[in-house]
Each structure stands twice: as structure tokens, then as C-alpha cells.
């Protein structure tokens, strides 16, 4: 099977976020593989081990994303592709869609796996957008997948309910937490990853104009929420604390 994973290098949102002049401060920040994309990589490796074939990782990003690709290769993927978007202005999910669609245009694939959402941008758009452009079916938020006879049987999470669907390959799926437990790269895996092919492509390598990849949305401001006043931690006898809390909710916050 030809298995592809689209993954994003993201800011580790467990870290403190700082903003300066409407830009997220990246200096010294921790970057990771988007957590939902780790589920996608793990599932891709398991599918390959079961059905044979190859796992190719594809990311749109800057040079620094090589590190996340190497990590994915160390987990067990076979090849990686970095589509360098450094020169693209005002990127948005549309831009990512356009670049990925151009990349996949002449590829053969049975399944493309991605994450449910990116923890930084958080739009959840890239997967379904790409599937539409490739004219293949998509299934989002999956927690289980079985492939047999050219068909995938998939369990997806629909706001807590489970929906079981069947689709013919090729398909694009997006991974939800619960799909699997991503493995940690092993030491031999890390050594092997250094020798695995990692190809870098530029926007110029595709038949695309600047206009084709410029975003269709614009971010006009980024900011941190107003510093929340330190909450009131109540004190005293528990009976009194409980009374005080209810009174505050009723009279100060006016929410009950």
C-alpha cells in the first residue's frame, strides 16, 4: 500500500505563549509534531506492517520542520518530504491545501492520514480541503480503522457517539485521540532515520503561481486574553466556604 501522512510541526501549546507585535514569539519555544499527527504516523506504520508498502511523511513548513520529519522517520516511516513554504505570504489553510494538492497530483496513494486539528492553528481545515481537491473521500476524527479488499471500515468519533462507516480506497482520514498509542522512537530507529531519504521541494518545483498559494484569509491581530484576575481561593471552615461560594455565584457573579 502507498501510505502518506501529512503532518505539521507545531508549537508545543503546553508551553507558555508570548506575543510581540501581533506575532507569536518563537525564540526558545519548544516545537513538536502536532500530537494528532503522531496518531496518524503510528497508524500508518501499523497499516504498512500489516499490509506491506511504504509510509511517506509530507509536511509544508520551513527548514526547521526537518527535525519533526526525522522523528517520524525514527518512529518507523520510510521516506519524508518537506515542502518549503518560506516564501509564501499570508499563509492560511488554503495555502497548505494548494501546496499539498500540487504535491499529490502525480502520486499514487491508497490512504492519506492526517490529524484532526493542529493544536496551534486549530482550524481542522487542511484534511477535508485536500481530499476535496484530490477528489477522494475523507473521514474525519477516526478512532479505529481496518483495511481489507480495497475497503476501509472506520469508526469515527461524532461528539462522543461512534459512527461506523465503510469507504473504498483511496481515502483521506484524520486521526482523533484514542486511535492508538504512538510509539517512542527507539535508539536503532533514530540511527536508521538519519539515512532515510528526506526530499525538500520548493514552491517553484510545482506548477503554481504565487497567487495560487496566497492565503484567502488574513490575520489582522493576535493577542493574549486579558490577564485573568487571580481567582478567589476561599478560606475558613468548609461549611462557611461552601456558603460563601454559593453566595458569590449568586450575588457577585450572578450566574445562578
Amino acid at each position, binding site marked *: 500500500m502507498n501510505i502518506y501522512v501529512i503532518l505539521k510541526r507545531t508549537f508545543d501549546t503546553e508551553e507558555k505563549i508570548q506575543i510581540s507585535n501581533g506575532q*507569536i514569539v518563537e525564540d526558545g519555544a519548544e516545537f513538536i509534531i502536532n500530537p494528532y499527527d503522531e496518531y496518524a504516523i503510528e497508524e500508518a506504520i501499523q497499516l504498512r506492517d500489516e499490509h506491506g508498502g511504504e509510509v511517506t511523511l509530507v509536511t509544508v513548513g520551513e527548514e526547521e520542520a526537518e527535525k519533526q520529519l526525522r522523528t517520524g522517520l525514527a518512529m518507523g516511516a520510510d521516506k519524508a518530504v518537506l515542502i518549503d513554504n518560506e516564501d509564501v505570504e499570508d499563509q492560511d489553510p488554503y495555502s497548505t491545501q494548494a501546496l499539498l494538492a500540487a504535491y499529490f497530483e502525480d502520486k499514487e496513494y491508497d490512504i492519506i492520514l492526517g490529524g484532526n486539528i493542529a493544536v496551534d492553528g486549530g482550524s481542522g481545515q487542511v484534511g477535508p480541503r485536500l481530499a476535496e481537491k484530490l477528489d477522494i473521500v*475523507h473521514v474525519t476524527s477516526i478512532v479505529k480503522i481496518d483495511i481489507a479488499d480495497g475497503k476501509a471500515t472506520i469508526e469515527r468519533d461524532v461528539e462522543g457517539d461512534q459512527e461506523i462507516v465503510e469507504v473504498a480506497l483511496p481515502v483521506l482520514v484524520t486521526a482523533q485521540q484514542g486511535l492508538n498509542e504512538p510509539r517512542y522512537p527507539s535508539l536503532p530507529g533514530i540511527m536508521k532515520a538519519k539515512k532515510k531519504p528526506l526530499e525538500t521541494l520548493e514552491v517553484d518545483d510545482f506548477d503554481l503561481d504565487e497567487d495560487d498559494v496566497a492565503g484567502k484569509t488574513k490575520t489582522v491581530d493576535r493577542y493574549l486574553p486579558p490577564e485573568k484576575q487571580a481567582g478567589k481561593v476561599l478560606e475558613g471552615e468548609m461549611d462557611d466556604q461552601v456558603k460563601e461560594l454559593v453566595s458569590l455565584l449568586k450575588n457577585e*457573579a450572578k450566574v445562578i
Partner: protein
Amino acid sequence: MTKKVLVVGEIRDGEFRNVSFEAVAAAKEISGGGEIVGVLLGESVSSLGNELIAYGADRVVAVESDKLASYTPDGYSQALQAVVEQESPEGIVIGHTSIGRDIAPKLAARINSGLVSDATAVETAGEEVIFTRPIYSGKAFEKKVIADGVVFATIRPNNIPALDKDESRSGDVTTLDVDIKDLRTIIKDVVKNTASGVDLSEANVIVAGGRGMKGSENFAMLDELADVLGAAVGASRGACDAEYCDYALQIGQTGKVVTPDLYIAVGISGAIQHVAGMSNSKIIVAINKDPEAEIFNIADYGIVGDLFDVIPKLTEEFKAVMVKS
């Protein structure tokens, strides 16, 4: 210049989800006085059209087909594309629900437009429509505009207030015939876990339990408290993984994103993935025995204590106060 805006209503078990009415309100803001056209998709849905009109839509277009009885990306995108072609809207608003998240990016790619996902506010400044949306797991916000083309957005439930219902409003409800074909997704089964009662994403008060609840039997305590408050019960991933409750109750980045007036977190540590799903709540109460727990950093009111002591007392106190008022 006014804009004609489509609002895709979402119907569940024969009733609108509230976010449909909130989407009408968002559309009103975007339209600058232009026409609001409600869109309903399903097997037999046009009878619900008048309710959307009562909430502010000017007229409603329904696409009815047995192939739209359940949501599929192919069925919905074909139907919506047909409506878009008929109406040539300048704006589209859909709720950021499971269906909205799935269909909006597909439709955006199909009609070659931008899309702002998960907006929590919308405002206009002259010709420009400005959306606010959370980024970085809710730790920051961005303001976004659509640079060109259709002003297309999905809106987070429970953030943009619906307009008052006005039964005296009237408008046309028409149907559009669309030949829906070649659905590539076959739905084999749906397992409903969602407990009956209040929809978490629309609840005004939520009582949520975490791993600190120690066992499924103890969730009965939260049910009782929720009953008194007319609240819905939610949970952290920790509680779900420990099988104290069903995953349908999960709140957070992977679960439901909620914005109630009051959120009471009981025995929840406050991991970022949980907080991403509830930090927009108006008032947050934390009850945790660990004074260092992260949840206190975002709480408006906190009680440091053993939840097994606090919750029964709190339930009694609420009972006393709610009866009086």
C-alpha cells in the same frame, strides 16, 4: 454594501441545535442588512423553516432527499453546492459542530474560498468583517478577515448570542431539487452514547468530574448537584480513560468545546487539553484537594478541599438557595 448570507441550520432528532440560531445572528452582523437565507438539508425538513425565520432568517431553502437523512460529506457538499449556485451568496455561516467542521472545509475547497473556523465573535468595521477565534489551544486569540471572496465562517456554539425569537416574522420556505448521487461513504452503524438531556455544548451550567472522582459510582454525586442546578454533567479525559463515565461526556480539545456561564471543575487538574475546551466559560469554579493544581490558575473561585466532603455540602447549599429564589 449589504451581503446576502447563507446560514446552514443543523437539525438533530427533529429539532434545531441552538447554534443554528446563533449562526443567524452572526449572519445578520455579516450581512450589514442584506438578506439572510436559511438552508436546511435532510429527508423532510422544510416544516422547520419557519422557526429559523422566527430567529431572523428572511427565507429558507430546503433540500430534501432520503440521501440526506444522515450526514455524509458527499451528500451535503452536493446539496450545498447547488444552493450556493442558485443563491450566489456573499457570506456563509455554519455551526462549528461535528458536521460543520467536516463539511465547511470541503465546501470551501470546492467553491475555492477562504474559511474562518471556530469563530467566537464577529464584528464589522465598514466593509470589513472581522472574526475572533482562539488559537494555540485557547491560550491566545487572533482576529481574522477574509481577504477576498465569500465571507465563510464556522462559529463555536454558545458564544454569539441568538436573536430573540419573533413568531410574527414570516418568509418563504422553498425547496430545491438536487440529484444527490454517488455517496462514497456508507454508514454501517451509529452507536449513541450521548445521555439524553442537556446538550453539553449548549449547556449554561456544567458540572465536570475528573480522575479525582475515584470511581464511576461517585458520578451520581455530580448528577445530583447537576440536577439542582439544571446543569449538564461533563468530564475530563482522565475520568473517561478510567472508565468513570462515557467518552461522550469528555470536554476538551478532543472532546466537546463548551462555553457555559458556570463551569464547576471537580477533581480535575487542569491540563491544557482540558482547558482548551472550557477556558471561554464565563465563570469557572475549581474544587480540588491540591492547592497547586493548574485549574486554580484559570478559576474565578476555588475551594481547596476533599471533593467527597465539599460536593454533598455544596449540593445542599444550592438546594437551600435555589428553593428560596
